[in-house]
């Protein structure tokens, strides 16, 4: 008898060693603590790890494995993160209630947890896990963990179900004719929305976890056969290099993986709209979705993407082109208007038409400050108003805009503190910057740089400043792509989606800036409709 017990113990030890070896082979690292065969010990260790967490639920129960032999088992999950009906109906109920099924089962000897997984649990996503860390990770990601006495394995049962925001219309980007759904804070919902746009098994979604504390799940999406494999590897590598304890939003990831931190322009594009992201994926870009953020980023980003909009491809190309040109104009106005005003009024009065010069002189008569100071004052006030309008609760925000626009603007002019032309210029600048929401932040900062150049060196200063900005933009890279492509370096074929947006039928190649593997969007030879058809398109 003593010999048999010894034999059993030896067998168990060997089994434990085998599991450990398997684990090491799978994960290539030193094995963390693996689960013990004793349920009590397992529960105690997990309780110790979750010490002080009131939301941990440990549901102990027993079921009869064989007639007359009760097995103690436990279900561990975090309250609020699981879907209770699944726990009740699909896990506990089959095990405890359906005794007939249990008795029919042919389980013998030690508890075989795989049998339970295969024969009793009516849940779709079940995995076998071996270590405490896996158990804890499963609990933290909203799964339930099932353990039974006598087994040194556990079951990670997919029962995620927490409260999430419904899919709503995005607030930062609105659509007139495009799809209205926007991303939510749930990663899986977001990837599903993209998957539903691109129904192709070539759309790959690979996951990583970043953040020592937050354990944020991050998905990389790309279309195999279009996206450059080099680019995908680079994205994965950069994500792997992130060493931080917290990722709370897309912006965190963005700042860790972007090429250059010392720039006011963002080199990673992000959107709240699945259709826009799907479009980018089809251009050979790689998307990065972060759990807990209603934005999905795509790389590489080009400068011109600041002015592109998903709606551009939906509306007719003439109108889209007009809108593009309008946005570019708005960009230039918001960048140069204050600086040009200062340069003209301070150094180059001869360039202003004479009648306008008289009007301007009359309105700024009695203003105590030089034009540059006036302009700086109004720009600071505007920035404060904007910031206050965004941060304050919505009802108060409206009051601020009324106070700001009507009272301060009007009163400042009437009181003779600033001239009316300055107010007009600042207003035009502000409105223009709203037309290009993506680049607006950078533009408002660069505006100050140009303002300083203009107030010291006039139009010469603006020219040198503009050249420096241009040079800076040209020197930027985003994941191997030239930021100013297709303008610098010049790419003739990519110009069809820049200042002009050609009709979709002419947009038959993907942009070369992203180095796509498959350049053609359309098949080489489109099927020719039969000549007999009276519905033929007229071809000239």
């Amino acid at each position, binding site marked *: 008898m003593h010999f048999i017990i010894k034999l059993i113990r030896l067998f168990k030890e060997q089994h434990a060693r085998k599991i450990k070896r398997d684990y090491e082979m799978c994960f290539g690292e030193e094995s963390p603590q693996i689960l013990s065969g004793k349920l009590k010990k397992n529960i105690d260790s997990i309780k110790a790890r979750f010490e002080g967490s009131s939301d941990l639920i440990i549901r102990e129960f027993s079921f009869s494995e064989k007639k007359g032999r009760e097995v103690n088992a436990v279900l561990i999950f975090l309250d609020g993160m699981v879907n209770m009906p699944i726990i009740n109906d699909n896990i506990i109920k089959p095990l405890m209630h359906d005794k007939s099924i249990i008795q029919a089962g042919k389980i013998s000897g030690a508890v075989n947890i795989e049998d339970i997984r295969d024969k009793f649990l009516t849940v779709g996503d079940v995995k076998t896990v071996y270590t405490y860390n896996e158990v804890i990770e499963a609990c933290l990601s909203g799964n339930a963990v099932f353990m039974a006495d006598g087994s040194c394995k556990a079951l990670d049962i997919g029962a995620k179900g927490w409260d999430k925001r419904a899919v709503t219309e995005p607030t930062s980007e609105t659509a007139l004719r495009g799809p209205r759904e926007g991303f939510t804070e749930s990663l899986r919902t977001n990837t599903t929305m993209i998957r539903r746009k691109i129904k192709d098994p070539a759309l790959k979604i690979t996951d990583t976890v970043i953040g020592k504390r937050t354990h944020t799940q991050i998905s990389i999406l790309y279309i195999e056969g279009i996206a450059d494999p080099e680019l995908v590897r680079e994205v994965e590598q950069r994500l792997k290099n992130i060493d931080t304890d917290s990722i709370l939003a897309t912006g965190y990831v963005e700042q860790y993986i972007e090429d250059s931190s010392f720039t006011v322009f963002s080199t990673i594009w992000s959107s709240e709209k699945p259709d826009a992201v799907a479009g980018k994926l089809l251009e050979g870009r790689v998307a990065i979705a972060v759990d807990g953020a209603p934005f999905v980023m795509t790389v590489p980003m080009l400068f011109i993407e600041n002015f592109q909009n998903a709606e551009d491809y939906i509306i007719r190309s003439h109108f889209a082109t007009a809108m593009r040109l309008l946005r570019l104009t708005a960009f230039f106005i918001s960048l140069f208007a204050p600086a040009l005003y200062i340069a003209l009024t301070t150094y180059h009065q001869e360039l202003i038409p004479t009648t306008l010069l008289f009007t301007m002189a009359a309105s700024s008569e009695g203003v105590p400050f030089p034009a540059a100071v006036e302009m700086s004052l109004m720009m600071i006030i505007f920035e404060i108003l904007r910031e206050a309008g965004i941060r304050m609760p919505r009802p108060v925000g409206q009051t601020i805009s009324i106070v700001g626009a009507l009272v301060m603007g009007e009163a400042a002019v009437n009181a003779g503190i600033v001239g009316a032309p300055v107010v007009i210029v600042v207003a035009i600048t502000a409105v223009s910057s709203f037309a290009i929401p993506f680049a607006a932040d950078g533009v408002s900062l660069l505006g100050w740089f140009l303002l300083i150049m203009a107030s010291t060196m006039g139009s010469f200063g603006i020219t040198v400043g503009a050249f*420096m900005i241009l040079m800076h933009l040209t*020197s930027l890279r985003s994941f191997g792509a030239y930021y100013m492509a297709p303008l610098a370096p010049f790419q003739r074929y990519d110009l069809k989606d820049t200042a002009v947006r050609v009709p979709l039928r002419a947009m038959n190649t993907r942009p070369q800036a992203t180095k796509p593997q498959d350049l053609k969007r359309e098949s080489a030879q489109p099927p020719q409709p039969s000549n007999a058809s009276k519905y033929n398109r007229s071809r000239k």
Partner: protein
Amino acid sequence: MKLEQGSISTKDLMIGIICFIQATVLRSGYIVGITRQDSWAMAVTGFLFSLPLVFIYAALLKKHPGKNLIEIDDIIFGPVLGKIISVLYLFFFASLAALNARDLGNFVADYMMPETPITVIILIFMIGCVYTLCKGIENLMHLSAILAILSIGAIVINFILVLRDIQPWFLKPLFQLEPMRYVQGTVSVVTVPMGEILAFTMLMPLLEKDTKIVKPMVLGLLFSAVTIGIVILRDIVTLGPLAEIVSLPSFESVRYVSISGILTRMESVYAVVLVILFLFKVSILLYAFALGLTEILSRNPRHSADSEGQSCKAGYFKSQKSHPPLLFICAALIYFYSLFVFESVMENVNWGATTAPFFALTFEFLLPVVSLLVAFLRGNGRAKEVQS
């Protein structure tokens, strides 16, 4: 020094040369001063006579692929004499950079900012150049397409807008000046804008295909010659005899533009384009000077092109930036040089008309020809050694 192989395409080189020459084209006054109403023909002859220069440069560079001018000197003339020749080249690059910076300073001080001291103008200008080079010479070359579009667009628009004011008979009488003047004009065109592309020989190791340089250079020169011709023609038919008197004929002819009283003062556009093109040109000259100085002073010169190519591949996704280490010192040198390079504008004009062609020809023609001859002779000698 982090130099990368192969990021400038031949297309960029061609457009870069166009931009480089455009900067001088817009200041075509010195040519009009020599050959008067026939100056437009100088563009044609200038182009034809600058072709030999291009072939000489190309032959030199083809013999030593992946090397720049200073390295080629070392190879041809040996370490001591090569260094002396290189210093001469560097003096030429520095002089050109200083002269152009001064030119721009004079222009801005005369037409845009009359009350600002020229020292401050050149200082801001040099800061712009240094910033440009800090961002990488390849990026500047990539940018050249935008600049070319900008400058050529400005020329075309200006040309269309002055059509109302042109008087074609200003071109008469055709070819009535003494022949010496045409020679002088041709030499001026060859040396001052065209031959200055010698500076591009310092960029050759950065080319994608460093063997294909004749075509982009010739095409660049051809295009530049066309624009020189058009601009001078426009100035002459708009201004007539006045073109010989004013120092900036292009600037004055653009002043004529007045479309129903709304579209006036087009010369401000011209000024902006000129400043940007000069930034481009002086940046390239400054790069040539700084890189050359670095190479003369460095003890272990740049390694062979192969290792550079590999390092480039490894940094596939890294931002491409390369600027010579002595950039700031060189920029400061050129800044002070430009401050005392000329006492006055008149001195500048006089020098440009009389001395400049010979000064430039020494470096643009004489030294390269001698280099090529020596290389040829040494190459023959070496071949014989091998045979015997």
